[in-house]
């Protein structure tokens, strides 16, 4: 008697969950759908046709205009964003891994205090740091250079936190001991033993950093003045501010937004296997 009812109950709840998920999926995907639709339209049909229905297919022309506008400055922005995001995330991940590993595997005085300070850093929003950083960089004279955006991007307290948790869990002390016994130096131990075991966590950290830098807007806005150093976000923002004078820029802003989310989607799809492992591991400990 009880068996069918539990099955039905679970079916009901499952349907409810599915329905909710479905609604949420629509909620999250609708803006992207709009973006895709809008990016295929010529400027003249943006305002005059239904926003959610395709009309004249003009995507390739829009892309051509986007990449040739102002001597191809958009291509430059894409290049800059890739530099900031890939290099920044890679270096940032390496630093986080080294710090986390050291905090997890070495006993030294003030270790817990240091870790608490780093954890405190997680609580400080990067936006709040942009201005003090600007003043510092302005005094050092590296405002308006690649470094002004790159240097702050490689610091990630959350990455250090994740790396420590994961190094604690995934790298057995015995293994390190035996590596040491075999005569490996600390760096050798880290790179050839610990690093590989920490890979899922490192991919997670890399992804976090990559997305954060890719979407970063405020820091470059504060730091950069030269258009040729802009990342995509800032460049599109600047174009968007000019649409009143140059209406045709609007379509380029929309097409540019679509182009700018493609790499993030690709990176996510490629690395999602690691991403999930890393997230789960992080949440367990």
């Amino acid at each position, binding site marked *: 008697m009880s068996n069918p009812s539990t099955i039905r109950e679970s079916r009901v709840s499952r349907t409810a969950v599915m329905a909710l998920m479905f609604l949420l999926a629509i909620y999250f995907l609708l803006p992207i759908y709009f973006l895709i639709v809008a990016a295929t339209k010529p*400027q003249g049909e943006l*305002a005059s046709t239904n926003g959610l229905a395709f009309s004249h297919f003009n995507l390739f022309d829009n892309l051509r205009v986007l990449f040739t506008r*102002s001597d191809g400055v958009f291509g430059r922005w894409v290049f800059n964003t890739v530099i900031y995001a890939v290099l920044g995330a890679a270096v940032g991940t390496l630093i986080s891994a080294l710090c986390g590993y050291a905090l997890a595997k070495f006993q030294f005085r003030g270790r817990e205090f240091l870790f608490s300070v780093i954890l405190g850093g997680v609580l400080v929003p990067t*936006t709040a740091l942009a*201005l003090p950083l600007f003043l510092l960089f302005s005094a050092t004279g590296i405002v308006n250079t690649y470094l002004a955006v790159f240097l702050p991007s490689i610091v990630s307290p959350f990455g250090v936190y994740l790396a420590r948790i994961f190094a604690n869990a995934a790298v057995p002390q015995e293994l390190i001991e035996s590596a040491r016994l075999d005569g490996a130096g600390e760096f050798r131990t880290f790179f050839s033993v610990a690093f590989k075991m920490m890979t899922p966590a490192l991919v997670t950290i890399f992804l976090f950093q990559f997305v954060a830098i890719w979407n970063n807007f405020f820091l470059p806005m504060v730091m950069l003045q030269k258009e040729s150093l802009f990342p995509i976000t800032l460049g599109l923002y600047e174009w968007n501010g000019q649409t009143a004078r140059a209406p*045709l820029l609007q379509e380029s802003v929309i097409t540019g937004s679509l182009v700018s989310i493609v790499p993030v989607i690709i990176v996510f799809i490629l690395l999602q296997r690691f991403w999930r492992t890393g997230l789960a591991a992080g949440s367990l400990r």
Partner: protein
Amino acid sequence: MSTTITRTRLAVVAAAASIALLAGCSSSDDSSDKTSAAPCEPAKGKVTLQYWNTVPGMDKVVDLWNKKNPNIQVETKNISNDQYGTLGNALKAGKAPDLSQVGYDELPNLRTQNAFVDASACKEATAAKSKFVPWTWSQASFGGTGVFAMPQDTGPMALFVRSDIFKKYDVAVPKTWDEYEAAAAKLHKADSSLTMTFFDPNNAEWFNGLLWQNKAEMYSYADNKWQVNVESDQSKQVAEYWQKLISDKLVRTDLANGSTQMYAAYQKDQIASYVGAAWGYSMFRDNLPKQAGKWSIVPMPTWGTDGASGDWGGSTVAFMKGSKHLYESVKFNTWLNSDPEALALENKLGGLYPAANAGLKLPALSQGVPYYNNEKIFDVFADSSNKIDTSFAWGPTQKTVNLALQDAMAKAAAGDGTLTDALAKAQATALKSMKDQAIPATAGK
């Protein structure tokens, strides 16, 4: 995409807050500088000027200059997203650029804050007077009391009409505001979904253009005192006119200028005309390409037999306080705003309608425009430009007054009060805001 937008908003708010902080920290010393003209000496060797603006493609124009003038290099910064915020913060921090784009209606405000340097010691600056459309020079020089800016572009107003709709209902294109009202009634009677135009209650700049046309001299300066006369008979005439159109439902009040809804309404043939400015010609061409050939541009309807026109928008390039290279700034600024090659490029890339007389004769501005039936639409704007009242002046707290005016106009559009009440509100706000800033002012008349 949606997250990007929220981020952007947040960031903007944060930026405003934090930059205000920054401005608070830095010591700004504005003790010594008086309004007397600064010396005009050429520098020895190479100089680099900072020039902030909001014009698309301005960097290309500056590249042209930089190529020709290796010793006066110019760096541009685009501040289109928060023009006056960015400029105001920089001024407070003592880091203003040498030159900055400033709208005509913001000039008095910034001058009150002592933001400009008078370039009249430079011969080239004073000699530039004859190069510009009279009213623009009058505003940039504050009635000839100095040279604080060079006029860059203007927005002489005209009437954009859907000739096909007028033809369809056999209504003549109006030449006066009285005819405009009669035509509006006719069109609306013929088709109840059709209105003559829309009144955007949140666009004080546009409404000011209409007041300007009727020679509503809202501000004047005499005996070290501002005379505030926002609520003059001339402005009341304009307000009452539009109030009547609104009350009779002959114009819509639910559309914002340049919004998607506005274009959609024009697309659906619901609106027959547009009271616009020269820079607006590309709005319709680019957003409503299917209506090519249906639009014409004719002079603004006039008040009776007075042929005066109005201006909506436009900017100057101002000489900012703190600049160490006034001589070079004048050289660049003059070239930027009166050299035909520079003007042609600004018009092509940035859509600027020039304030220089030479600019009005540009080849690009003497040709027929295909979208408008190959009509020479710029002749209409050039004509309008020369019929704009030269004695019109803006107030030193224009922005605050505009906001109050918009507020009251929005209420009037919703049936709460009238546009005449809105003028009274603007007058009161003007006096109060000037009193708050310790600017001597009295109500005119």
